Structure formats: structure tokens, C-alpha cells
């Protein structure tokens, strides 16, 4: 019997409505939120890490490092103020990698499979997962900003609003990078390599801790690496948006990188092309 004949016999409903897509998206976001709530230590560590940098590292550097007037700042700023966008991006970077770690864990433990056997298109599931991871990272950033403000980091009031679109874009870019990496990591134990070869180089070879003109003065090679690092542009996008300004170059780089990483992640989890095909989809 032909496939066509099959199609016409048993088809009480076909496809999904927009409402059903939204239910699926909401379900994936809800699960990510529940996991976030249940894993309090994840939230605490996500908050403690940048705060340690802010409280200790920034306090020391404040006396050593002078930050000249560079856009978007219109006057001299304290080092704590300079480093805050970098720490915000750091939260999103770690969250993206944490999400990657959780995908590797889910794959090893098997519950990733339940996501992959959903009848919704694979790209939609991947993008939904990315959005949920980004939403969690924004919650972490909000908590950090509250503490940073109490600590004395001065941010314009409207900056809390204007930074939101930047956080969404940077969160998507880093979440997609994490998801792409998760497809490349065969086992959980290999995740330490991500720390050494992705997180640390991305963070330190960027404008998170020092303005790029300072880096350029000390090492043109490192400066070039920083300029090639998409994370640098994520930080600058956040930095400018905190002051209600838009850095077009940063926006373009973050957008392009987010699109490339997302397409890579979708291809990596594609049933016909992805790495699961070669690896057998995890444990038997």
C-alpha cells in the first residue's frame, strides 16, 4: 500500500496550531525555570562568581587601573562601573555553558531524548531551549544588578530597561554557542575542556576587564584576538545599552554570531546530519 493511501486513512488532525507551538515553548521555558528554582546552588554560584569579581577584584584594580573617558562614558568612571558590563556578560557566558553542560548531562542521562522525540520541528525545540536558557540568564543578571547597585555601581535608571534587548541577544548568542559545544562533547567528563578552552579564553581575551586601548598598548597580538572575539562585542553591546546607546558594530557582530551559532546548533542536532547520527545518540 502506498504512503499516500496511508495518509488519507488515519489523519484525524495534522500539524500544530500557533497555540500549540506556544504551549510547547511555554513548557520548555517552564521546565528550565523549575530546574533553576530546584537547583538553588546553581543560582547562588551564578551570582557569587561575578560578585566576587566585583567586590574583590574590582576593589584592587580600582587603585591601579585608570579608565579614561571612552564611549559610552561621558566622564571618568570607577573601575567597578567599567567592569560591570563584563561581569553581566560573564553571567550569560557561564549560563550558556551551564546550559550546554545540562544538555550533555541530559543526553547522558537520557531525558534529552524526550525533547528530541517531540513532534514539533527540531529547530523549534532548539530555539525554544535557547530562549528558556536566555530567560534564566536574564534573571541571574537582574539579581546581580540589584546587588551591584546596592554596592554603589551607578547605572542610569533607564539603563535597566534599555539593556534588556542586549541581554536577549547576547544570551542567545552564548546559549547557541553552548548548545553547539554540547553537541561536540561526547561525555560529561570532557566538559572541563570547555572551561579551559572556551570560557576562560573568551572571557579574558575580551574587553571585560580592561578597555581594549589598554590591551593594545601592552600587546597588539592580544588586542587582535580580543577584536576577533565575539564575546567582546557582546560586552560592548551591553555596555552601551546600559547607557541607552547603541553600538552598531557590536549589534551586527552579536546578531551574526547568534545566527551562525544557532544554525550550527540546529544542524548539530539534526537527525539526518547531526553528530548523534555518528555517535548513536548516547547510551544504549
Amino acid at each position, binding site marked *: *500500500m502506498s504512503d499516500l493511501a*496511508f495518509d488519507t486513512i488515519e489523519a484525524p488532525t495534522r500539524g500544530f496550531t500557533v497555540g500549540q507551538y506556544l*504551549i510547547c515553548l511555554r*513548557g520548555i521555558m517552564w*521546565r528550565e525555570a523549575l*530546574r533553576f528554582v530546584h*537547583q538553588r546552588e546553581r543560582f547562588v554560584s551564578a551570582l557569587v562568581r561575578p560578585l566576587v569579581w566585583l567586590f574583590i577584584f574590582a576593589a584592587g584594580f580600582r587603585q591601579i587601573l585608570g579608565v579614561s573617558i571612552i564611549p559610552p562614558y561621558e566622564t571618568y568612571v570607577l573601575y567597578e562601573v567599567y567592569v560591570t558590563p563584563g561581569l553581566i556578560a560573564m553571567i550569560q557566558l557561564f549560563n550558556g555553558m551551564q546550559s550546554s553542560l545540562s544538555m550533555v548531562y541530559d543526553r547522558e542521562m537520557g531525558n534529552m*531524548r524526550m525533547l528530541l*522525540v517531540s*513532534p514539533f520541528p527540531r529547530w523549534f525545540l532548539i530555539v525554544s531551549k535557547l530562549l528558556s536558557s536566555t530567560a534564566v540568564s536574564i534573571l541571574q543578571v537582574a539579581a546581580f544588578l540589584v546587588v551591584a547597585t546596592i554596592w554603589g555601581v551607578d547605572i542610569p535608571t533607564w539603563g535597566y530597561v534599555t539593556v534588556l534587548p542586549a541581554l536577549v541577544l547576547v544570551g542567545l548568542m552564548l546559549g547557541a554557542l553552548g548548545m553547539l559545544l554540547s553537541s561536540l562533547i561526547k561525555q560529561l567528563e570532557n566538559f572541563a575542556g570547555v572551561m579551559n578552552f572556551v570560557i576562560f579564553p573568551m572571557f579574558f581575551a575580551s574587553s571585560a576587564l580592561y578597555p581594549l586601548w589598554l590591551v593594545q598598548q601592552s600587546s597588539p597580538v592580544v588586542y587582535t584576538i580580543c577584536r576577533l572575539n565575539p564575546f567582546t562585542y557582546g560586552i560592548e553591546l551591553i555596555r552601551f545599552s546600559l547607557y541607552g546607546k547603541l553600538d552598531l558594530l557590536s549589534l551586527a557582530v552579536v546578531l551574526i554570531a547568534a545566527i551562525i551559532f544557532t544554525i550550527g546548533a540546529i544542524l548539530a542536532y539534526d537527525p539526518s546530519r547531526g553528530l548523534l547520527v555518528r555517535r548513536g545518540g548516547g547510551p544504549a
Partner: protein
Amino acid sequence: MNVISPDMTVATAVPALSVTGVSHSYGSRRALDNVSLTVPQGEFTAVLGLNGAGKTTLLSLITRLFDARQGSISVLGYRIDREPGEALRRLGVVFQARTLDLDLSVMENLLFHAALHGIGGREARRRAHAALLDVGIAERAKDKARNLSGGQMRRVEIARSLMHEPRLLVLDEPTVGLDIASKVAIVTHVRRLVRERGVGVLWTTHLLDEIEPDDNILILHLGKPQAHGVVRDVVAASGQDTLRAAFTALTEAPPQEAA
């Protein structure tokens, strides 16, 4: 729900699952070689094989964790590679590895699964409650999944797999690691689904005591199909007296080429 759904009567001619000439390799290692299989609606079909026979690979292809290199797979007439959404919405699956999110409660696990099938709100809660009642575990709905026993987790996974009312249920060695009572309860429950709801079931196992004389079976050995048909026919064709003897004979020798 213990009745056969109305549209099932017109759809029984369509096999719940049709696997035709499927082959798959991981790199240079051939995991499946020209496997064909049909699971009619309302029937129990088992894939028997030792470890490494290719059972899990076959289920991974049926559930489209990845696509088959050769051959075709259809669920209720929908090609899994061409209309994956239509095929997967008619398919329920219980993987061999535990797939519950241990940090979520039993109910949350079920509601998450419902959302992945576009079912939300009260309808999702209603179905989740009914599914848990059906497997006799409703009183644990609020417990964290990690606090369940192995048998209870498996029952929750079966309840979850039925929430979107699939017409085909595939289970990959669902009783491995369970005690006798849990094992019997699960086998009995799944057979009741076949009998009362007309669900087509594909069950992989290496435990021959889970097989009944009227079942359809496919014996796989090192990725190659060795025999396919009703148990008594397979036993007769093998020249042995029992399924155990037939299975042993067919999985001890080097794999036979598929007919």
C-alpha cells in the same frame, strides 16, 4: 479510557509501524542490516536479541533520534523522515535509559511531556491524572521523580508515553533491572493496552519469558534479522522445540543473510 477509539476501526488496515529494508552504520560498524518489520495495530510485537543485536539502534531510528541511512520507516502510514511531526505525534516511547527529569515531580514530568506534544492547561492535568491512575501511581504525583523506585519510574514513563494517546507504543527493554513484581505489572499493563485500546506495541527484550505464543517476533543478531513471524512459526522453522532453543540456535551461529 478502556474503549477502542472510534477512528481506530477504520484505520486498522494501516500498520502501526512499518519498517522496510532499514540499514544503519556508525562509521564503519554496521549496526543494522536490511531490517524489515511490521507492527499491526492492536498487536504485540517483540524484537528479540542479545546485547549489541541492534535493538536500541532500531528504536532510535523509529523515534527519529537520527535518520536511517537506508530503508524507510512509517508510523501509521507517515514516513518518519518525510513527516516526522505526524509520525511522532502518533508514537509513544519508553527508552531503556531512564528519561524522567529527577529534579521535577512526577506530575511536572508528565505536564512537561504534554507540553512537548502541544497539550496544555486543564487538559494536560486531566490526562496526567488519568494516566497516573491507570498505572496505579496517582498518589505519588507530587513526589520528586528521584524518590521513586525503579519499577515506579518505569510505570511513570509508561503513563507519560500514553498522555498524547499514541497508536504505537515502543518500549526498549522496559523491564531490565526491575524486580519480578514490577516486571509482571508492566508486562500485564502493556498487554492490556494492546487488548483494550488497540495500541500497537513494539517491545524489545532479551528476556524470553516476556513473550507469549501468539506474539509476533523479530529475532536480531548482530544487526541482522534472523527470523520474523508468530512465535510458533519461528520455532517450527528453526527445527527446535521451544522459543528458547530457537533463539539460542539463531543467536549462537554467525548471522544469516536476511531473506
